[in-house]
């Protein structure tokens, strides 16, 4: 019964996602900490699936992190966004796909506010012309990059080399999915599956053979909190919220975590390290942490990309236990090499976290 209820709620939030032809906009955090994820997204969509995903170097930050740290006015953020949309139009696109969840939420908020207050939209169009001499436009379809991987999940499954299955036991891997708050908490209808039962990552995990874990704090924020992380003296906020999530998921013994926001995987990965180093507590098996991934990384693993090409060596929580479970081969000697085998040293070992 409950399951049917969930199915019904999900059915109410079927989002229309066009198949092809997108203007791609990057994420500041994903580029900084997970550059290979964006590389993988473009390689899968363009080269493996033959989609038209266009990028121009002229786009910038949307200003979202500054806006949510209260460090720029709303009108400034809206005009920067209008500039991004205008570039989309200038290059002949009407579908807009962004890599960042903070951006996605802010685009949704902005378009909704413009819809309700046309005089504000007019003002922003005027700002845009005065500052950039660009023609105002709005996307016909606005999606997050995880929506696209969700859309293509079965095509990816058809090309997969590995499954989210434990090769030793044959059991599906136990996966925690963590959705960035700004994906659909504000505008449930803009996300695949809404806010309470978002289906965007669940759909990927199911298509690729894994099993989703439900746990009490599943919808709790990772704890980023913008200013609550940016300023060192506020950072306890961020740590304590991640801690709450891990304590809540621990009894369910997750094999891995998949995320769609660029910030969440950074926090869920790094705060596990801090908890291990300061409290001696680890959440995975035998002193390991629970490996945390972006959806691009998981898609890449499933499709047989080399783990070190995916940038998994830049995670602080080691990913090897998960690679072993999936039966993915990797060369430990190559983990920290630069391009063409260049020796660039390697990170120190954490004291506690394996």
């Amino acid at each position, binding site marked *: 019964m409950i399951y049917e209820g969930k199915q019904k709620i999900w059915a109410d939030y079927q989002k229309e996602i066009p198949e092809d032809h997108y203007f791609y906009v990057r994420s*500041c955090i994903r*580029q*900084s*900490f997970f*550059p*290979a994820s964006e*590389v993988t997204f473009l390689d899968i969509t363009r080269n493996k699936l033959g989609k038209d995903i266009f*990028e121009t*170097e002229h786009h*910038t*930050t949307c*200003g979202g*992190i500054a806006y949510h*740290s*209260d*460090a*720029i*006015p*709303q009108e*400034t953020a809206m*005009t*920067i966004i209008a500039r991004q949309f205008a570039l989309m139009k200038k290059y002949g696109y009407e579908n807009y796909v962004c890599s960042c969840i903070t951006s996605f*939420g802010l685009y949704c908020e902005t378009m*909704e*506010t413009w819809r*309700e*207050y046309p005089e504000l939209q007019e003002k922003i169009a005027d*700002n845009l012309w*005065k*500052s*950039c001499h660009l023609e105002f436009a709005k996307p016909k379809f606005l999606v997050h990059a995880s929506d696209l991987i969700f859309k293509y999940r079965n095509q990816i499954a058809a090309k997969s080399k590995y499954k989210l299955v434990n090769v030793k036991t044959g059991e599906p891997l136990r996966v925690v999915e963590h959705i960035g*708050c*700004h994906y659909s908490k*504000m505008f449930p209808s803009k996300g695949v599956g809404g*806010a*309470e039962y978002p289906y965007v990552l669940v759909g990927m995990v199911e298509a690729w053979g894994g099993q989703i874990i439900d746990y009490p704090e599943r919808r709790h*924020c990772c704890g980023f*909190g*913008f200013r609550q992380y940016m*300023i*060192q*003296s*506020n950072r*306890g*906020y961020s*740590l*304590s919220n991640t801690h709450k999530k891990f304590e809540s998921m621990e009894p369910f013994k997750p094999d891995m975590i998949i995320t769609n926001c660029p910030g969440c995987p950074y926090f869920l990965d*790094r*705060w596990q*390290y801090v908890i291990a180093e300061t409290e001696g507590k680890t959440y995975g098996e035998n002193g390991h942490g629970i490996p945390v991934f972006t959806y691009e990384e998981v898609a890449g693993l499933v499709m047989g990309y080399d783990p070190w090409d995916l940038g998994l060596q*830049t995670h*602080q929580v080691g990913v090897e236990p998960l690679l072993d479970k999936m039966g993915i081969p990797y060369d430990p000697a190559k983990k*920290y090499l*630069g*391009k063409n085998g*260049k020796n*660039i040293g*390697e*990170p*120190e070992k954490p004291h506690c976290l394996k």
Partner: protein
Amino acid sequence: MQDYRIKEGLNACINCGTCTAICPAAEFYRYDPRRIVDIVQHQDDAQIEELLKSDTIWYCGECLSCVTRCPRKNAAGLIIMALRSLSIQTGFFMESEKGRQMYLLCKDLNSNILNYGYCVYPRTFKYKEHQEAGVVWKWEEEHLDDIFERLGGNLDGEGAGAMRKIPQKDLDELKKIYDITGATQMLENVRAAGLKKAEELGLTEEEYAKKLYTESSNKHFNH
């Protein structure tokens, strides 16, 4: 208040407390979003002014989890964002410890945006200030160019790609947007207020920034 976020975010609040129950900030800080929404809906100017001068409005993490769960479709998070903007406009942000952090946030985030076109830029994200980023980030910081090259990024490079150099023409447009939408003026005001405070305390700008970055009184916490 004229802010669009108040128009969007406030319908009659029934004081049910759902927002407070699910709020990550309320777990950690002495913070009750329900109370803030209630004060704003009663439009009591004296109480609102008190809020604008308080630490309370700076506790929210802007996760917007409260929006989903409110039975009245209120957005406590949006209302708080509007209050923060007002606190900055009126200068009241300087009256609270958490409000004064605006000096640092404005400086760091906007210098990334205006100099590089990114909110977060790896060369200014320092291990020294972010030890939680781990020993792996310490290694990455020392080898950023090599690591971006290894991973197919384009750090400070020409053309498209992850962390490419954003052309100066585009950065100039961002600056023009800042100028005509009030951001430049806001940043100047916040900076001037911070420098004045530093002078009152007998601190250099650098010492003041460090104080804001690292110091916190214990009065904020729930536990």
